[in-house]
């Protein structure tokens, strides 16, 4: 067994661990809440370690796809031929970074869910199924399993939000689930078309990419099918105007679900656009990218402006997510190295930043039972740590140098100016509006006179502080020393078809 294959088993472990834990939890009595929590915390720590390992072990100068592992699953039966469907795992630079993000956010999310009392066991079972789905989508190099894990990541959300959510939870849960699964119908149709057109009887992605390079997919076919992938994945990525599940879903979702969902799940959508859209159908991508650019820019501006007018913490973050995912789409649409690098960096940056924001909102809401900005005032006096963490997250949000947001957005702006200067300018405008809504929130909520009813608010608990510091460290790492990130991304992104340097 070669070293690379041995590393493939690291991926397999990372993928299987949450599923094994979920299956084990089924047999733990629901009353044993501490056992459930400890098991989940151990699992989260292991996953964090494995994710960090995957990221570090990914060789910046090596092959684009590393740690490959292939288990034949179904082959040579019916229409399936050699390697028809195989559990083909592997990471490239993009998915290595996304793996790291998943590890970090899942760890923080688990810690935050520590205080959950209602049906704790069920919550963690669903959560780990969701996390397994996320890892699986990032690792999968087979269309069948890509879709398998993609659906696996989306469906538990219905129960997670419906059972443990707040404000209008049933509505939010149903809307979110239906919109996301509706999007996946587009992906499904795209898969049928691509696999049929290739006629190779295999779902293996590298095989299909190779077939695409040899010209199996005609330009017209690519132009016709790319929108299915782009819109299907775009729904999950918060593509305007299909973003409307995001504010409602986030408002209803419980804290740790919001963290994982906004932090990681929305990235699956952008990741899918790269994996399926750009990599399988490069000509289609080139043709449609201007449209994606326009939608991304509108989303960035619309999200920022909408956030400016909202009064609910979670709605602000929901719209701000739409805005930031708009930046990701702008970055992808540039189809040049620096812009796409920025897009992937932004996926990571927004992931940790938004996870932190939702963590803090949850910590406040659990005590205050309101999320209306105007109810608050001067809480820096009673919750200093909370305010410090929120300010860090907020500054990362507006792109202050030294934090991850700056690194990511800077790359995107440079990339956008190289290809579409006007849209680069509009993107910067959106970032400026972000500064406005963040600073407004700081002023209204954190400073000024303390309202007497909030005198008894407690600062964040030690467990939450651990989770928050992990997220802050990640933001600082990317903001101050981004070479480890960009070095890993560059070869992968340059290797994508149709990407200019």
């Amino acid at each position, binding site marked *: 067994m070669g070293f690379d294959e041995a590393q493939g088993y690291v991926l397999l472990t990372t993928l299987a661990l949450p599923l094994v834990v979920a299956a084990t939890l089924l047999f733990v009595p629901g009353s044993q809440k501490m056992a459930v929590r400890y098991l989940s915390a151990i699992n989260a720590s292991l996953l964090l370690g494995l994710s960090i390992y995957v990221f570090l072990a990914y060789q910046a100068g090596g092959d684009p796809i590393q740690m490959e592992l292939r288990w034949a699953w*179904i082959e040579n*039966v019916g229409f399936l031929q050699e390697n028809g469907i195989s559990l083909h795992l592997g990471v490239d630079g993009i998915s290595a970074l996304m793996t790291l993000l998943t590890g970090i956010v899942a760890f923080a999310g688990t810690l935050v869910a520590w205080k959950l009392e209602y049906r704790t066991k069920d919550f963690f079972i669903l959560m780990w199924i969701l996390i397994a789905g996320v890892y699986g989508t990032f690792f999968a190099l087979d269309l069948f399993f890509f879709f398998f894990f993609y*659906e696996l990541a989306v*469906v538990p959300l219905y129960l997670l939000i*419906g059972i443990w959510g707040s404000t209008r939870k049933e509505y939010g849960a149903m809307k979110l689930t239906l919109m996301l699964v509706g999007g*996946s119908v587009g992906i499904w149709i795209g898969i049928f078309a691509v696999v049929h057109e290739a006629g190779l009887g295999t779902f293996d992605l590298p095989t299909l990419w190779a077939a695409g390079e040899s010209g199996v997919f005609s330009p017209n076919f690519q132009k016709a099918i790319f929108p299915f992938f782009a819109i299907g994945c775009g729904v999950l990525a918060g593509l305007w105007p299909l973003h409307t599940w995001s504010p409602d879903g986030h408002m209803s979702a419980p804290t740790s679900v919001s963290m994982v969902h906004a932090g990681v799940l929305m990235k699956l959508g952008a990741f899918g656009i790269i994996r399926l859209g750009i990599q399988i159908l490069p000509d289609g991508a080139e043709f449609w990218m201007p449209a994606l650019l326009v939608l991304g820019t509108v989303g960035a501006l619309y999200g920022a402006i909408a956030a400016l007018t909202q009064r609910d913490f979670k709605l602000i973050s929901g719209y701000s997510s739409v805005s930031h995912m708009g930046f990701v789409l702008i970055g992808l649409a540039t189809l040049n190295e620096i812009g796409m690098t920025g897009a992937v960096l932004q996926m990571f940056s927004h992931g940790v930043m938004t996870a932190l924001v939702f963590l803090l909102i949850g910590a406040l809401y659990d005590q205050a039972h309101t999320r209306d900005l105007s109810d608050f005032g001067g809480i820096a006096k009673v919750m200093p740590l909370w305010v410090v963490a929120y300010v860090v997250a907020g500054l990362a949000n507006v792109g202050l140098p030294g934090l991850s947001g700056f690194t990511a957005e800077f790359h995107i702006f440079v990339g956008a100016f190289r290809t579409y200067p006007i849209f680069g300018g509009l993107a910067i405008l959106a970032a400026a509006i972000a500064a406005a809504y963040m600073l407004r929130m700081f002023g209204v909520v954190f400073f000024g006179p303390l309202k007497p009813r909030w005198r008894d608010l407690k600062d964040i608990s030690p467990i939450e502080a651990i989770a928050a510091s992990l997220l802050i460290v990640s933001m600082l790492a990317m903001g101050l020393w981004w070479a480890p990130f960009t070095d890993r991304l560059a070869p992968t992104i340059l290797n994508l078809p149709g990407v200019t340097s």
Partner: protein
Amino acid sequence: MRDYTLFIPEYIAVGSAIAILAAELIWPRIRKDLLAYATAVGAVAWLIAALPYIGHTPGDFQGLLRTDDFTTYFRILAAAIVFVVALLSAQYMRERTSTAGEYYGLLLIGGIGMVLMSASSELLTAYISLELLSFSLYILVGFLKKDILSNEASLKYILLGAFSSAMLLYGISILYGLTGSTTYEGIAEGLAERGNDTDAAAIVGIMLIIAGVGFKVSAAPFHMWAPDAYEGAPLPITAFLSTASKAAGFALILRLFTGALIVDAVEWRAAMAALAAITMTAGNLIAIQQTNLKRLVAYSSIGQVGYMLVVIAAIGYGDAATAEDASAALLLHLVGYTVATLALFSALIAHYNRTGDDSIAGLRGLAETQPFLALVITASLFSFAGLPFFAGFATKFLMFQASTTDELLWLVGLAAANSFVSLYYYLMVMRQMYLFEPLAGLTRFRPSPLLGGLAGILLLGLVFIGVYPQPAFEAADGAVSALFEVSATGLVRTP
């Protein structure tokens, strides 16, 4: 040659049926669940006797019936369905009837009808086999004779069933007039050689046959009987209706369309695609409004029939390889669908035995009162919707992919969109179970060990097929290749 050894497994099944009828005649006060267990034992013997036929040289009974791997596949499926349904009926029927011998006897006979439908290679034999299954079902649906809904269901089913049989017979007679033969081979040859002046007759004959079998598998717009029959029938018979009669219908359709009518595919494929599109869309859209579980399952199964008809349309549009691959995937999907349906009904019957409530709202809070049953129901509904880890995901994915041809991408897309619609009403059921607290007075309960165990085994089967479909897919592939060794795909009509 009359080779009477071809049907040894069915002799066992008939023998069990007669023995069970006799047992109740001799001991009228026998405990009715003992009859259920006897049926189950008979079904197991039937299944075991069918095993040696796997990979056996195909047998032919006077050109009327063929026993090949395709027949064997449905034999095993039929025996397994009868086994599960018999066990599902044990408590349910004991509490509701005083005589059950006919019930279990007809269950076995209906299963034999299913096998003969899959074996028929001649139209009249196919028709008689179809009626054997249908007549068993007419009685079984109305078996709760003191229940007015059951009576209504049976009557509607008989009337509409007779109507559809008439159409089928009319279609058969037109085809006979056209080709001078009722065997599939003869029809294929006759259709290949017919001149262009007989187009109209061919189209009318084939359309009538499609309408006739469409009735039997409850394809829209011929589905009107299904919701009423499902609602009125005893619950285990609802399970039998939605598994055995569907599987049997598709067995017949597959052999008929690949063996005979494929020669004239140009005449019917567009109609078949339209039938598939209408069936899946109508089934799923109407299912949304249902408040009764049995009716919900009825419409959801109509939607499923629509997905399966996509394969038949693909047989018409694709080349021989596509036809074979799509048929293999259909057989795989049938197994996944059967396991999911039986799992769903084992949980529903366990719930019904306790509460006597078959409305969707009656499932309120089941996750609190009986989390295991809630899990089984969720798993089977998710399997219908095609969500990962459960059979439906893999089998539906493979089936749609195998049916994708250049002309049918729209239909496959529509099927994918319909899966999404179906998720909505499945989620509405889940919502009752997981999001709401149970009604006052309902406390935690345990399902009977038999039903609980059965549900558990079927759940494992559901996950097994979903996670590792290779063995089932290989079996389906082998079964279908038997079909295509004698198929008429080589014959093409030259207009």
